[in-house]
């Protein structure tokens, strides 16, 4: 598979354990306590959106649901809040996957931003129905930061696939 559909470079196939590792790292990054208003994005949503766009046949709604349950417990929020939002995110990302991959990375980020925002809006809606207080508009900044991180994140997560096919013992990587 290419980095984007319009590029000519062909990458190595992705390893299943690497997807698992990155998702586990994202959960771990989400567990780091940074107070009520983390400027940092929801790493799980971002990584999940990435793999749903890159590998819609490997990562989809089932993975999203499981990750959602983990985040529900970790965040001490109500059960099903993250699960619902992540499942819808995975569905949208999977459906738009073939379209998004034709764009260069910065324009991909423009697609990802409304997806992350939608995830937050669904969580907001769930909690408002359950009777929670509105957390303020500052909370939505994390989606913006998440979309801004799309460019470096893509290179980081595709790094293992950028390795050349043939092995050369004289090359460091």
């Amino acid at each position, binding site marked *: 598979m290419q980095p984007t559909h319009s590029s000519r470079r062909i990458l190595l196939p992705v390893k299943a354990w690497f997807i698992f590792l990155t998702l586990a790292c994202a959960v771990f990054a989400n567990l780091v306590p940074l107070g009520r208003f983390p400027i940092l994005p929801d790493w799980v949503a971002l990584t999940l959106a990435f793999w749903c766009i890159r590998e819609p046949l490997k990562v989809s709604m089932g993975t999203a649901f499981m990750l959602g349950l983990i985040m529900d417990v970790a965040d001490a929020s109500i059960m*099903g809040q993250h699960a619902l939002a992540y499942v819808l995110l995975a569905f949208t990302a999977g459906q738009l996957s073939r379209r998004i991959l034709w764009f260069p990375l910065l324009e991909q980020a423009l697609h990802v931003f409304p997806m992350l925002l939608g995830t937050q809006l669904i969580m907001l809606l769930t909690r408002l129905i359950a009777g929670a207080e509105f957390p303020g508009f500052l909370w939505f900044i994390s989606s913006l930061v998440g979309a801004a991180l799309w460019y470096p994140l893509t290179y980081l997560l595709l790094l293992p696939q950028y390795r050349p096919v043939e092995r050369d013992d004289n090359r460091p990587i």
Partner: protein
Amino acid sequence: MSVVGHSPPPFFKRGPAPLARLFFFVSLSVALLVADLRFHTLEWARLGAATVLWPLQRAAYLPVDAGMDLGDYLSSLRELKNENEALRKQQLATANLLLRQTHLDQENQRLRALLEMKERQPAIGQVADILYAARDPFSRRVIIDKGSQAGIEAGQAVVDELGIVGQITRVFPMTSEVTLLTDKDQAIPVEVQRNGLRAILASASAGALELRYLATNADVQTGDLLVTSGLDGVYLPGLPVAKVVTVDRENSLAFARIACAPVAGVERHGQVLVLGRRIAQARPDEAAPTQEPSTKGRKSRARLK
């Protein structure tokens, strides 16, 4: 067989259609939401999962902890000296009260015994550290480092050196979750210390508190201290809760709008004291006087037949 990074696309074996899967998972999530919100049946699942996640959570907390330790280490000597000075002054100021505390307690017990009143429960508690604020931006909760292993139970009151901070709402083996006073769903029965006027203190928006359901002519002034009334059977009476900031007596409204600010450092982090569970006093026996009307009612119903 993979040729240049492609496994053959599984044309036919892709499982159910995406929309069908979406419908399945969304309905599963909604079922979970309803089960948790409406019937509160998922506490056991949450407890198990949280126990499994605990080492991971602890590990994630380590870098933050290390950063804070580093910050403490680098804080200047002068700052520490100043703090030490302030603490010593505070100790001297309170020493007077503390020295007489045991004496007053004993005297109080004696007088109560004389008056044949029920003895007041002594306040016992455990010190706990606030680990971090829960990531959930929709509620105001913090996690402390004592759990059911340390004998913490849901419902216990949590105080700091100035007043009430909140209440334990969920207990895990190693940690427990404190819902702060400023959480939207948290309400606490209080009385005005100056005149004993009872009211309910609840959260207003954005971390402020408000005194609810008091008439516009109620005797509340700016600067009044609100203490727990103890009517709920959860909080010990007389613990400071909040100070009245503004009183808005607009006649067009049914109730006065009384904004308050918490006395304790509710949104600050540090050490807290988890007070022992208060055992509610038994109610006086109401059985005797109510017996009469019920038998009468039965008789009249029998007559109607």
